[in-house]
């Protein structure tokens, strides 16, 4: 990301007084979060709410669709028109809503099991269809809500409750998948860097078409090895200063490396 672009204003001032007064709490329901203390998802939630505040999107025009898992609980803590749908099905539901009502801002929140496991078949088609929704992949490398089984993002060899001898398979690479399927907007963020995430969310929501944002986030309860703040900080790296996010070849190269490069990896201007 080179520089932050000023957001557009969608509403007249008087309608926005609520957002000005309440800030990020505009988008919070009365229910308290049930995520574990220290969970990376709190960072994602705050960054997303700050983005929405700056973009001046009113809750009544915001639709959040989530699947099943820890990520899936997001709509209960949010104030919007929200659907907590079936496991893996957030992309079709969000796409249907957006096609039927193009005036809504539609976010599809999905976890690593949701997006890359049970619902993986929907991802290439959501990308190909290029419906104007923002897909945020909350990746904590584990099935947290069912207490720590192997997910498609669990690194090889990691001991989980479903693989006591260690996970025999390598993990997937969602950024590379999205690029290969032909996504026009691919970004990666880290739950421990809310300011960076905010910029990515902002660009993703403003992008006309399907945007895919992969957020790596620690699971503080079920992963003491790989998806921890300490270990992820050693892996996560900002994209180089002179990186050109319009160059697809460069994007593929970045996606293939062992490091987790964060930032706007690829964007095709419409």
């Amino acid at each position, binding site marked *: 990301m080179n520089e932050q672009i000023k957001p557009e204003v969608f509403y007249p001032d008087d309608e926005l007084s609520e957002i000005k007064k309440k800030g990020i709490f505009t988008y919070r329901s009365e229910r308290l979060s049930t995520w574990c203390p220290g969970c990376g998802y709190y960072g994602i939630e705050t960054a997303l709410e700050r983005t929405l505040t700056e973009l001046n999107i009113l809750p009544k025009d915001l639709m959040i669709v989530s699947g099943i898992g820890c990520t899936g609980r997001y709509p*209960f803590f949010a104030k919007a028109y929200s659907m907590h*749908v*079936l496991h893996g099905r957030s*992309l*079709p539901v969000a796409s249907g*809503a957006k*096609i*039927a009502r193009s005036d*809504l801002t539609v976010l599809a929140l999905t976890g690593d099991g949701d997006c890359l496991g049970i619902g993986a078949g*929907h991802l290439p088609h959501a990308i190909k269809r290029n419906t104007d929704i923002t897909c945020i992949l909350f990746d904590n490398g584990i099935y947290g809500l069912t207490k720590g089984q192997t997910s498609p993002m669990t690194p090889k060899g990691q001991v989980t409750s479903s693989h006591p001898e260690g996970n025999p398979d390598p993990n997937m690479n969602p950024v590379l998948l999205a690029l290969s399927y032909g996504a026009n907007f691919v970004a990666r963020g880290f739950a421990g860097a809310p300011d960076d995430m905010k910029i990515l969310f902002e660009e993703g929501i403003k992008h006309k078409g399907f945007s895919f944002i992969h957020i790596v986030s620690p699971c503080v309860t079920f992963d003491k090895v790989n998806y921890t703040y300490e270990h992820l900080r050693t892996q996560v790296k900002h994209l180089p200063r002179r990186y050109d996010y319009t160059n697809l070849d460069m994007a593929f190269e970045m996606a293939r490396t062992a490091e987790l490069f964060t930032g706007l990896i690829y964007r095709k201007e419409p």
Partner: protein
Amino acid sequence: MDGRGFQLISDKGITIEICGSSGDGALATGEIFTKTLSDMGFHTLSFDSYPAEIRGFGKSVAHIRAGAGPLTSLSRKVDILVALNDRYSIEQIPKLVDEGVVIFDNKPIEVAREDNDMSHRLGPGVYSGEKDEWVIESDGSHCIAGYLGPGMYLYGVPLNQLSQRTTGESRSRNIVILGVMAALFGLPDKEFINNLTAKLGKKGKSIDTIISAFRAGYAYVNEQIVKLDPYLFRKEALEKRDYRLMTGNKAVATAAIDSECKFYAGYPITPATKIMEILSAELPKHGGHVVQTEDEIAAIGFVTGASFAGVRAMTATSGPGFCLMTEFIGYNVMAENPIVIVDAQRAGPATGLPTKTEQSDLNHALFAGNGDAPRIVLAPTNVSECYQWTAEAFYLAEKYQMPVIMLTDLFLSLCLENVLIEPIPDYKKHANKYPTEEELKVYLRQKVTDDGVSPRTIPGQEGGCHVVSGLEQDQYGTPVYDATTHTMMTEKRFRKIKTALEHDIPLPERSGAKGKVKLGIISWGSTTGAVREAVNNAVNDGKSVAMLKLIVVAPLHTEPVRQFLDSCDMVLVPELNFEGQFANWLSMHFNYTFHRLNRVTVSPITYNDIEEEIDRLLKG
């Protein structure tokens, strides 16, 4: 009978079959013939049977029944057989009535005689019963002429030669045969030419060539054939009605547009695909959207999202696709989201018999999904009800915020019937229960109400933000797992069914003999047409038979059904599945032993079948 229109010679209608190999154009011919009869004001009912392969080895049969009065069923017996392919047509001969007519392609003569002299050894004639008289073996194939029963009428027409002569190729045999049929049965050529132009004018081939093929057939009959058979579409009094000729699929699609459905998502599957194809062309003109998704799970997901976003949405599929949609049925029950699913049933489990009809998805429609999941299941019985009940499905889904499953079947989906359509009243187009201003102050999406229906906001409404979920939620929308809430919310969801029964679901309709009867028939879905015709005939013959027609299969109005059971000495439930799924469903409500007529013969049931069963039961 004062000479103002046309009338068939037979009161019971005439049945015509056009039989050919896939690719012979038998079905296109059948469609144009049906359309022309319909335009003249005849009541028509037609149904095609064809193999799953597009072209090659397979039998295609267009089956048309036409008459002056309303016809509700196909007939087992055929009056006129048009043979475009002798091998397949020979198999149809046993269905012919004793004085039936066969028109066949008089090709063997042409092959046999090299001078191409069209002498009429196989001209019009009444078969005497001597088999050798007609067998032709010039190219080793069997000619249908050798298989006729005594008393049948046979017309040989050199279709291939006439087609070659007028269009330069043999593919237009099916147009020539239209001319032959028109001339032979006394139909005016003008109407045919109009329909030919409308149907084939766009296909590139010059319409003049096509019409010349038609005229060649027409002229051949007038010049060369002496008519001997009694079948004639006569110029008689016929009440002119405002019929629209359509298939069940077309009726569903048309009704969806007329009901202000704005979103359709689906995945191609026989026989429901046509609904998507029609809507794909038409819905965007009405401000709607059609999406072809990657699978049926996504299709129903799209529909769920669109419906939540506030537009009327539907999907259509057949058994295998319906299986994939199962998880979202439960979701939409739980999230109280209105969706309409059309299941055009086909035969067999798994992939089964994709081009054959059956009524065997009833169990799945009634019980699909985990947990206690109330839903409404409808089964229209003919094409005009496909229209009416699609509109009703949208209304019920929106009003009661639950999935409505409409079961049609391959027969209903593809049969062409001319129907009279009633306009949909406005109140059925807008049935959402919006919250009042008072209710919006503290908006409860899952509010527990007396009728079970909670006020529903759609995105964009100030103060109406909420979350729906597949989890059990309390009135405020918070997921909770306690006994009290689960009991209260389950009762609320089932209360909607009770309210719907009280307010919107019509009582089952009884017809036939009044009062106490010896035999009652309860029917559902597309078998009802055959039952109706058989019962009418039986009552006219003085038999003590009555019928009860159920369109809404679930929930069931138990009291009227019980009264019907009490008024009958015995009750028959005919249906096209092996288990007797509907009889089983009734047995869950009533302690009663039903007579069952179950068939998995993959063809629609005819009134002849029901008549035989009535006679058997009344005798026994």
